[in-house]
């Protein structure tokens, strides 16, 4: 008992205290170091934090290098996978393209119709001056939300011009210098924009409130459609200040929109603190008096609409035809398969029939021979008194079939 305990102690001591060959530290000292690291690390000891930072730096760089081959294999696998899926992807893309083509044509028709009607009511605006400008100063003042751009009267910038960022309304020019101009952002409390809320075409005035938010004021009529989607806020074009239909932001339909005592908040599409380049645009009404030339224009437009309609119809018909052709092809394919199988089956049957016929013929011959053998066998059989044929030989058979020896 004593000896086994001694052995255990010796083995443990040897394992934890003895330094092996090429070992600089004993196991116990390293375990001690680990515990120290663990305890000091949990106490947020500064030296451990530094050590952790150093190890982090080493590990992140080394990990990047070590993971290189694996990432290379992973990327190649993805490329190969992509390659194999190319056919399916292509097929899907073609379907999608056809679908989008149809939609595109529909949209084209709607746009053209829209232009036509706007022209009829003398409401169609054209961009007649467009300048791209860089935002020079964007000082975050709590009182006035405005930015300075690097284009001024030298570049034909005028007061009241509309400032846009990727098609979204940003503000308007309020101050023009020779080289620079000031843009009053729509997020400014002084900015009052006539807007319409879609769907529903609800008219309102929007004023700035926050960096990313506006607030709707003077909503006249709230007949909100029951929809789960967000409502879009666009310029209404009322007052002739802005062209109608420039997107501004969206409104969440909730209790706030119906409650008069709460702010109806508009979330802008653009973040005005991140503006770098903007587009300064002025719009002018398309001259569209109902004279002969405008009538010609309307006719041209109508022709265009008709043509586009026809294209859409043709596309629809083609798609329909393709669908039918595909169905027919599938059906023919199915019939073809069935016929092929039938042919193989019939071939097999014919072969079997042929075999049976052959067997029958052989049997018939044999029966005929046996019958004749009964009658004429004695005329051909070899015996001690004649020198005829041995039974079973071909000559004997021939002799029987000839009803005896031919003279």
């Amino acid at each position: 008992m004593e000896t086994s305990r001694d052995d255990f102690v010796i083995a443990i001591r040897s394992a934890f205290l003895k330094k092996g060959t090429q070992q600089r530290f004993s196991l116990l000292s390293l375990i001690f170091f680990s515990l120290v690291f663990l305890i000091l690390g949990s106490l947020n000891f500064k030296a451990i934090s530094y050590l952790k930072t150093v190890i982090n730096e080493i590990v992140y760089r080394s990990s990047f290098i070590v993971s290189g081959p694996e990432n290379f294999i992973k990327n190649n696998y993805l490329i190969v996978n992509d390659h194999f899926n190319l056919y399916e992807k292509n097929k899907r893309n073609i379907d999608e393209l056809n679908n989008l083509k149809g939609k595109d044509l529909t949209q084209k028709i709607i746009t053209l119709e829209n232009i036509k009607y706007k022209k009829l009511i003398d409401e169609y605006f054209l961009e007649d001056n467009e300048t791209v400008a860089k935002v020079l100063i964007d000082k975050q003042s709590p009182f006035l939300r405005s930015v300075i751009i690097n284009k001024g009267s030298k570049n034909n910038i005028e007061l009241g011009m509309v400032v846009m960022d990727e098609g979204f309304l940003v503000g308007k020019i309020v101050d023009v210098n020779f080289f620079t101009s000031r843009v009053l952002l729509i997020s400014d409390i002084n900015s009052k924009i006539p807007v319409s809320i879609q769907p529903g075409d609800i008219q309102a005035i929007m004023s700035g409130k926050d960096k990313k938010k506006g607030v709707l004021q003077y909503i006249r009529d709230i007949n909100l459609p029951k929809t789960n989607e967000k409502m879009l806020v666009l310029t209404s074009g009322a007052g002739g200040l802005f062209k109608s239909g420039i997107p501004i932001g969206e409104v969440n339909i909730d209790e706030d929109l119906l409650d008069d005592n709460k702010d109806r908040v508009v979330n802008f599409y653009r973040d005005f603190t991140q503006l770098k380049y903007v587009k300064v645009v002025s719009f002018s009404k398309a001259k569209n008096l109902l004279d002969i030339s405008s009538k010609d224009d309307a006719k041209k437009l109508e022709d265009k609409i008709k043509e586009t309609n026809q294209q859409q119809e043709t596309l629809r018909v083609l798609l329909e035809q393709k669908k039918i052709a595909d169905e027919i092809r599938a059906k023919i394919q199915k019939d073809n398969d069935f016929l092929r199988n039938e042919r193989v089956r019939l071939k097999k049957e014919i072969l079997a029939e042929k075999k049976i016929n052959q067997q029958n013929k052989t049997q018939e011959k044999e029966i005929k021979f046996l019958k004749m053998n009964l009658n004429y066998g004695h005329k051909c059989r070899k015996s001690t008194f004649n020198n005829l044929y041995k039974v079973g030989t071909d000559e004997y058979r021939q002799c029987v079939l000839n009803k005896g020896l031919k003279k």
Partner: protein
Amino acid sequence: MNKIYQNNIQNIIYKNIPIILLFISVLNEFDFNNLGLKYFSFNFSYILIFYYSLKKSESLGYVYIFIAGLFNDVVVGTPIGLSSLMYLILCGAAAYLRNITLSPSLIKDCIFFLITILIINSLLFMILNLIYDFELNYFEKIINIIWTFLFYFLFSFIFNFFEHYFTGRSNAS
């Protein structure tokens, strides 16, 4: 002369393969310990450390194991020093087994390995759960232990083969 030099480099590489493997397994983004599969994960580092500490203790220096543990902690995000502690306890267990073993057998090694990783994982679980408030899944841990144990057989054959054919030393201990 050139051939001798080449052979020397080859020998050095073969000799240090365990250390290289250990650091790759610790630093690589692809971790067998966290494959994202529900019923499959195993700790390759444990197998490697136990095998080489048991069979060829001079191949894996304790200091390297300690550093690999620190790296593992940084990569995995566990408190620094914890993995080192676990690795070193594993080394200690392997060294103890080496000292008491007269006739080595794979089954005995595996059973001892299973007991050791059960103790280590329990310790790890206790430290992480009770002291550091880490949320750990019992079931995943058990799955990990079982697979680690089962893979020890496979990897011990692979390492034996490697030692025999590449470095020319079969398991001598």
